[in-house]
């Protein structure tokens, strides 16, 4: 970190979503390399951020996609199906907790 306060930072919804992608990637990385309470904390932050991220996409990006992109309705429906699946998996992971050993495949 440079420790400087950013000035004149442009904030549109795409900036926000892209910077969230980066934070999500970093949180996954933190989760993999931490243990105990730090791991629990990283996990909780990740779950919260994913929920916020999906909500922003649904509220801002999906309506624009439906209106302006050729075949937008189908694209949005596919994304929604994907996100529903992700939410189910995430809920299952939340029940298991971040310290559960992976099942052998």
């Amino acid at each position, binding site marked *: 970190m*440079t420790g*400087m*306060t*950013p*000035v*004149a*930072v442009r904030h549109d919804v795409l*900036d926000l979503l892209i910077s969230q992608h980066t934070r999500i*990637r970093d949180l*996954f990385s933190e989760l993999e390399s931490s243990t105990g309470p730090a791991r629990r904390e990283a996990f909780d932050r990740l779950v919260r951020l994913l929920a916020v991220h999906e909500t922003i996409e649904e509220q801002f990006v999906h309506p624009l996609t439906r209106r302006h992109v050729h075949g937008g309705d189908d694209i949005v429906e596919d994304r929604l199906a994907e996100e529903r699946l992700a939410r189910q998996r995430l809920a299952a992971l939340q029940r298991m907790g971040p310290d559960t050993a992976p099942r052998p495949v």
Partner: protein
Amino acid sequence: MTFNPFEQQGIPLEQQLRNWRELNVVPVDPDHSDPYTKCRIIAMNGIEVEAIMFSHNFTRVCHDTEVKRKLAEIRYIEQQQQKIVNWLLPGSSSPLETTISYEQVAVDLTAWVARMEPDPYLKQAYEFGVLEDFDHLYRYANLYEMVQHRKAEKIVDGLTEVMPGRPTKFHHRHPADNVRDPYDRNTAAPLSKMHALTVMAAEQQTMNFYMNVGPQYMEPIARQLYQEIALIEEEHVTHYESLVDPGETWWERLVNHEYNEVYLYHSFMQTESDRKVKAIWELHLNMELEQLRIASELMREHDGRDPAELLPAELPEPLTFEPNKAYLRHLLDTQIDLTTLGAGYVSEAHERFEQFQEKIMGGEIPPSEFVIDAHRDHFGTDYRLETEGPHPAPELQQQASTKS
């Protein structure tokens, strides 16, 4: 430990072909692997691509069908080696993220080579070039934060500093001034020949990469910056390839290529931190030993010479990826204002340089400057990773935006 590449037994060529299962390598993890593992992968990919294109060029001027068949056999294996090596890169990394690693290769590979190069004229060529790659790393790192909202320190991990080098806008020279004088094949040290081949191959791969991934971006500034830096890679390939003696016979070139591949796989095997990647370097070393044996046989038969007379029985000290921060800071302090004139270097902007600059700039600021201005507008300052203190050149020290 002595390792004589002419006496070590390799894997017989007919046993080198891999099936689909063997080609299907597991890529490295972009977030947890050693940045220098990625550098070794990128460097070795460049070496294999050069091996392949050299072999194609040889084939195009070769009249002997038996030789062409032998080259085709080896080249197919080299293609598989290239696939294995380059497919170690993870699909989840964007081209821009890989670009940052390409520039980390260019910086720390060229700096190492410059430090180890025994010939002063060749050493100067690497010292000149590395300050330009160093600046490209800085420009792309600023683009990376703007486009992907992620800092290049996540990729280079503090091993390589990110700050201005010789400013990219000054790299655009008259093409005639990019041609250097070659070494003499009869008196040059074998290590000098390997250095020239290695850095030439790395820059050539970088040129090919940028000329192809640049248009895959939608952001205008990304498209423009790739165009600008890709044109400088053309200059760098011209610069380094002209160091190689054009009087080498085709057989000699073939043996030099194979020997260099043995040297580099052997080097990387010594220093690799990733166990699985190390196993690949070791396997490829054993394949290259056989390819060198075949090249040596061809040389004896067609050139009437024994490669052992040209190349050492013991490999040089391993080429190593390691931080070169103090060395680079010394170069920044002493060589930042150099340009080329004819086959040499000068510190003032001469007429041909200025005329070329005026034409290519067309009265506007180039993308490499615009990207920094845009970053300052967006984040308040340019992106840097100065782990060893402020920039050694006072005029290139960081300033906050004048807008606030």
